């Protein structure tokens, strides 16, 4: 649906050349929600703008639906842009127009007849939950409501692709969640492919299928959200994952362990997919006559699959612990945790 092929973008200013995006290649499949995460200045905003050529790549190619965007005439480019909706961090609504008129603009630009505009805008406002705000002006709305108008506007021309540029970054956590739910509905109900850039790992965790991590203009890691969360490789990726999936022992627990002078072994166990439903701990506890103590953990859902991460202390005979760990290792991912060494 969207293919980035060795995309680079340089900006030349008075202080020399700055490379915002460096040799980025990945593909977004039809129907997916694809996330690009990175800190501010990582080049992700520039990257998403190359899709509808709000930024022209300095080198490399961007294909949308197999068409090389750079080869299009100005008129063809405008036609393609109508098939690509875009939602912005600061909403970018027309303050002088009502909610209705804001959503109607793309239709008016395409010379849609008046009698078709009315029902279409009504339908879109219903969909985003603003059916009663039709005659309001943007400054009468909350941030979340403004973004809903932004989404309705982006959907007006029934695009195949929705680009979200930090769509939730200006919103509070509750509102973020409701906008994410809305984006998920957009994806499911209309089968619209979504490319979303963000610096919030929550966004990736809650709605994305695939993710690319960017740093200093480069892709540092890419894959399914499940893989990235369960086995992050790069340090930046681990930091992002830790932001929403605390997999380090909190200091208070470490202090407690040190105080008690315990030398028992700690293990990190990852529960993924179907195996997450198995009573593994209680099985090994019975079989190997061990006690276990869950020190820390979190269970969440990634791409509609359960995913858990527990740090467990086993108490019992050394030999039995070894066997128990081997037993668990056959089905789940388990690794020893050394509390004296932190990364």
């Amino acid at each position: 649906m969207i293919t980035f092929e060795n995309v680079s973008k340089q900006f030349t200013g008075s202080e020399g050349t700055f490379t915002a995006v460096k040799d980025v290649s990945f593909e977004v499949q039809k129907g997916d929600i694809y996330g690009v995460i990175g800190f501010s200045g990582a080049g992700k905003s520039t990257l998403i703008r190359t899709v509808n050529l709000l930024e022209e790549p300095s080198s490399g190619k961007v294909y949308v639906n197999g068409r090389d965007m750079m080869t299009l005439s100005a008129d063809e480019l405008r036609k393609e842009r109508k098939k690509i909706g875009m939602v912005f961090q600061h909403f970018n609504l027309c303050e002088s127009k009502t909610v209705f008129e804001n959503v109607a603009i793309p239709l008016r630009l395409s010379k849609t007849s008046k009698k078709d505009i009315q029902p279409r805008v009504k339908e879109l406002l219903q969909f985003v939950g603003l059916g009663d705000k039709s005659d309001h002006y943007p400054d009468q709305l909350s941030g979340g409501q403004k973004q809903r108008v932004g989404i309705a506007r982006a959907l007006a021309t029934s695009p195949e692709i929705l680009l979200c540029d930090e769509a939730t970054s200006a919103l509070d956590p509750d509102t973020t969640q409701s906008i994410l739910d809305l984006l998920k509905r957009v994806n499911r109900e209309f089968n619209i492919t979504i490319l979303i850039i963000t610096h919030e790992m929550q966004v990736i965790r809650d709605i994305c299928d695939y993710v690319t991590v960017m740093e200093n203009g480069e892709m540092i890691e890419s894959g399914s959200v499940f893989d990235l969360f369960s086995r992050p490789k790069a340090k930046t990726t681990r930091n992002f994952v830790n932001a929403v999936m605390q997999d380090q022992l909190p200091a208070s627990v470490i202090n407690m362990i040190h105080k008690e002078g315990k030398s028992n072994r700690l293990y990190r166990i990852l529960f993924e997919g179907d195996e997450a439903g198995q009573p593994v701990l209680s099985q090994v506890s019975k079989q190997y006559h061990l006690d276990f103590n869950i020190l820390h953990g979190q269970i969440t859902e990634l791409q509609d699959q359960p995913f858990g991460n527990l740090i467990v202390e086993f108490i019992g005979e050394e030999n039995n612990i070894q066997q128990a760990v081997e037993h668990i290792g056959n089905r789940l991912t388990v690794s020893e945790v050394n509390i004296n060494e932190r990364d």
Partner: protein
Amino acid sequence: MREIDWSVFWVDVWEATLETLVMTGFSLIFASLLGIPLGIALVVTREGNLFENKIVFQVLNVVVNIVRSVPFIVLMVAIIPFTRLIVGTSIGTTAAMVPLVIFAAPFIARLVESSLLEVDPGVVEAAKSMGATPWQIIFRFLVPEALSSLVLNLTIATIGLVGASAMAGAVGGGGLGDLAISYGYQRFHSDVMLVTVILLIVLVQLVQMSGNRLSKALRRR
């Protein structure tokens, strides 16, 4: 110094007021017809804008600055040949409108420019992402978003024109300025001077008040 016959004089005042209104009104219309497109051009030919064109921008920029640096009273005299060419005479209300338009158009262009530059660039980006043509971006996004501020700025221009039209009176342009100079100053009737000044004050207040109201109505809240 003779006493003024007020019953006759009020008719003169009424005529002078009408002349001022006509001069200001028509000058405003013609100056806007020149100045608004010029102001839009100053924005869209800028670096990184819709119709980026360094040469056009620089030429317009310099021309606007040159005209704006000439004081109105000098401009009025300096372009007398041009005024004659356009309206066939250099004296009277119609003749005064030529320098008024030349004076106000670049001023309006600058005011329009500043109003349009206030528009959130994000709105333009959103417009582009919708596949709007450059003309659609100007007339369906930039201008409507700037409208409230444009009205306030045009109010400033109108008041500038009221002042300039009074100056035009000094060279036989008619209007309240003419009345004030010829009766109030040259014939030492300070009461006439007072009447014209009060009328000018009232006129300016009315213009500003209507401008504020209209601008507020356009901002809708």
